[in-house]
C-alpha cells in the first residue's frame, strides 16, 4: 500500500529570512522553524510564493528545503513547492524533494505562459513523474492567469499522487465544485478570508501565510471548526481575524506584511529581495494595530473555556 498523505491542520508556507546583502539568514530560518513547531502548526511548506521563491535559483530553493527538512528532523511533514516558470526547473525541484525525503509537493501553474488546461495538466503530470510524491495542487489564478479547471482536474487525477488542492482563487463557487464533484481531492483553504467557508464545506486544512506569525490563532480556528465543528465560535474567531485578512489580501503587500508580522513575533526575517520592498511606517503601524487587536480578541474567546 502506498502512503496517502492526509491534510489535517495548519500548514505554514514559511518565509525566507534574508541578510541585508540578500543572502539567506539560515540562523533566523532555524528560529522560525522552531517557533512554528513549538506553536503547534501541522506542517511546513518550503519554496512557496510567500518564501519569495521567484527570487531564488533552483539550487537555493533546494538548499532551503533541505535545511528545513533537517531542522524539522521528522517532527512535522515538509511540503516542497515546485512553482517555476520553466518545467525543467519544476522537475528538478520535484526530484530534489524526492531525494531529500520530502513528504509532498505543492504544485502550481507555471506563471506567465498561460497554458491551456491540457498543457497545464501535462506539465503537472511530468512533474509528478519526476518525483512520485503526494501532490497538493495550487490553484492561484490571481497570479498565474489561469484556473485549474475541471478538464485539468480530471486529467491530473489519473495519478494517485494528486491528493489535495490549495484553492486560492477566492471564488466561492470553486469551493462548492471541489467539495461536491472532487471529494477525492482534499480541499485545503488557500484563501485566508474564506477559511470559515472552506471549513464549512469540509476542508480539513488551511495553508496560511499568516500562521508564520500567528500560529496559535490559526490553529485555534482550525480546531474550533474542523475538529470540534463549533461554527458559532468559529465565526467569532474568524470575525476577529478579518481585519488582518483585509490587510493581507487586499493591501497589495502580502509578503511584506507576513514578514513584518513575523518580525513582530520576535523573529528575524530581514528585507525583501527586489523588486519588492518592505513596508513603510504607516503600513507597519496599521498591521501592528490590527494584529494587537486580533490577539486580544481571540485570547478572550479562548479564555471562555
Amino acid at each position, binding site marked *: 500500500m502506498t502512503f496517502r498523505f492526509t491534510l489535517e491542520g495548519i500548514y505554514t508556507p514559511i518565509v525566507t529570512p534574508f541578510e541585508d546583502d540578500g543572502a539567506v539568514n539560515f540562523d533566523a530560518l532555524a528560529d522560525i522553524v522552531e517557533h512554528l513547531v513549538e506553536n503547534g502548526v501541522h506542517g511546513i511548506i518550503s519554496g512557496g510564493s510567500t518564501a519569495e521563491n521567484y527570487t531564488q535559483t533552483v539550487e537555493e530553493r533546494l538548499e532551503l528545503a533541505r535545511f528545513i527538512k533537517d531542522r524539522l528532523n521528522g517532527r512535522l511533514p515538509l511540503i516542497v513547492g515546485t512553482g517555476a516558470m520553466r518545467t525543467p526547473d519544476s522537475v528538478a525541484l520535484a526530484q530534489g524533494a524526492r531525494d531529500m525525503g520530502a513528504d509532498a509537493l505543492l504544485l502550481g501553474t507555471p506563471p506567465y505562459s498561460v497554458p491551456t488546461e491540457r498543457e497545464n495538466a501535462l506539465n503537472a503530470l511530468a512533474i509528478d513523474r519526476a518525483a512520485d510524491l503526494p501532490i497538493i495542487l495550487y490553484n492561484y489564478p490571481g497570479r498565474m492567469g489561469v484556473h485549474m479547471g475541471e478538464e485539468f482536474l480530471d486529467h491530473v487525477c*489519473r495519478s494517485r499522487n494528486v491528493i489535495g488542492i490549495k484553492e486560492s482563487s477566492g471564488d466561492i463557487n470553486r469551493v462548492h465544485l471541489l467539495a461536491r464533484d472532487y471529494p477525492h481531492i482534499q480541499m485545503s483553504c488557500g484563501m485566508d478570508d474564506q477559511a470559515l467557508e472552506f471549513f464549512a464545506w469540509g476542508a480539513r486544512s488551511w495553508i496560511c501565510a499568516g500562521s508564520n506569525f500567528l500560529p496559535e490563532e490559526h490553529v485555534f480556528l482550525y480546531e474550533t471548526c474542523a475538529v470540534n465543528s463549533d461554527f458559532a465560535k468559529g465565526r467569532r474567531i474568524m470575525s476577529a481575524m478579518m481585519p488582518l485578512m483585509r490587510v493581507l489580501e487586499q493591501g497589495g503587500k502580502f509578503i511584506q506584511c507576513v514578514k513584518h508580522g513575523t518580525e513582530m513575533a520576535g523573529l528575524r526575517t530581514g528585507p525583501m529581495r527586489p523588486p519588492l520592498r518592505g513596508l513603510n511606517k504607516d503600513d507597519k503601524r496599521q498591521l501592528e494595530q490590527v494584529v494587537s487587536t486580533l490577539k486580544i480578541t481571540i485570547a478572550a474567546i479562548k479564555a471562555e473555556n
Partner: protein
Amino acid sequence: MSELLTREEYEAIAANLTLPVNAFIDGSFRPAKSGKTFETVNPATGVKLADVAACDAEDVDFAVSRAREAFDDGRWSKLHPSERKDVLIRLCKLMTRNARELAVMESLDSGKTIYDCETVDVPETIHCIKWHAELIDKIYDQVAPASDDHIAMVVREPVGVVGLVLPWNFPLLMMAWKIGPALAAGCSVVVKPAGETSLTALRIAELAYEAGVPAGVLNIVTGSGSQVGEPLGKHADVDMVSFTGSTVTGRRFLHYSADSNLKEVVLEMGGKNPCIVMDDAEYLDSVAEHVVNGAFWNMGENCSAAARLIVHKDIKDDLLERVKAAARQWNVGAPLDPSVRVGALVSKAHFDKVCSYLALPEKGQIITGGKAIDGAFVEPTIVDVGSNDDTLAREEIFGPILSVITVSSFDEAISVANDTEYGLAASIFTANARRAIRGARALRAGTVTVNSFGEGDITTPFGGYKQSGFGGRDNGVHAHDQYTQLKTIWIDLGDPFDSEVD
C-alpha cells in the same frame, strides 16, 4: 494506423507515458476509498509500472450507485440514439488520435507485442466501438402479427446497470467487445479490468468522458477478483454481468447471481480448440501458417487458440516440417521490438504455470521449442502428445504450446475434436467440400472455420458451446441484443361501444 516505429522510438514513448492509476468513477479519477493500491508490473522486465487503486466493495457500491443514478435519470439511456452514436464515434476519433499511446501502454502492461497492439488490438478496438455506434440508430423494433383489434409491439430496452468483467489477454479489445454494445444499447456500465492489465481501460474511460459519455455511465473499478469482481457479481443493483475469463471464475458468477438478485449472466470462458488437418488438405504451407498463427498468436494467451493440432497420419510428417519452419519465423523477445511476434507472458505467476506444462512431455515428444527464457518468455513449442487423453491435450494452458494428435480418418478426427469439455472454436482443413461442411456441422463449437484459423469479425457472433460459455454472444447484432431486454407492448384497439352502435 501509421507505420511501425523503431524499438528505440517505442521505448522513448513508453518512458514519457503518464499512466492512469486511479479508478474512474462518476466522471473522474479517484483513488480507492481505502487508499490501498497494488503494483502493476511490466511482465517483460519485471519492473513496476505503477501503483493502481486497489478498490473494494465500498468502491463497487459507489460506482454502481452512480451508474444506477445515471441510468435512471436517462442522461445516456434515454438520449436520442443518434446522439449516443455521435458520442461513441467521437470516442473512436479520440482513440485514433491517441492510438500510439494506447498501443504502447497495452504492450507495457500486458507483455503483448507492439506489433500486435499496433496492427490488431488498437485498430480492432476502435473498429468494434465504431461498428456498434453505427448500429445504434439502424436497428428497428418489431410489430408482431396480431388481430386488427390489437397492436403487438416487440421492443428492446437497455438492460440497466451492467457489470463487465474483463480478462487480461486482450485488455483493450475485450473492453471494446463489451462496452461497445453495452453503451450503444444505452446501459450504464461498471467495468472491472483484470488486475494485471488495468491501464488502458482507465485511459479509454478518460477519452470516453472527453468524448461526451456522461459521468456515471462508464465506470472503471480496478482491483482483484475477490475485492471487486465478487462484490460486483453479488451486487443487488447490477442487472447483468458479462464475464470473459476462466471457467472456474465463470462458475462463481453464476453462484453470485443465484445468491443475490438473479441478475443475468453472460459467460465467455476457456477453450481447448481443435484444428483438424485432413489428408486431402491443399496448400500445406498456407495451412502451416494458419496452424502457427492459431497456436502462437498472442503467446497462445487466447481462449480461441487452436491448441490441438489433429492431423491425419498420411500428411503428418510433411505438415509438421512446414509448421516447424513457420514457427521459427515467430521470434521471441522484447515486446516493444516491432519485429518480435512472441512477447512476454502476462505475469510471473502465469509464466510459472505455463512452465509447469513444459515439464510434462517425455523425451522425444517435443518437436520444437520447449525453452523458457528470463522468467517471462516461452518459446513456441510443439509437442507430439500421442493421445487426446494426455494432460497437454485436455487442459487449457493459455501459453504457446501446441499439442499434436494423430488420427487415421475423418470420423476419428471429429470424434477427437469433440472430446473436450470446451466448445469455443474449431477449424478444419480439407479440400473436400462435403467433408468441410459435414465437419463444420459436426464440430461442437461456437465458431468453426474452414481452411483457415480465425474468429470471424465484428459482424459475426463469438461465443462457446459446452463449458466455454453461455448466455449470449460477443460481436455482431447478437452482442447488442444481449445488453437489452425484450418487452411486449400489447395495445387493444377494440371499441367497446361498437356493439351498442349496431
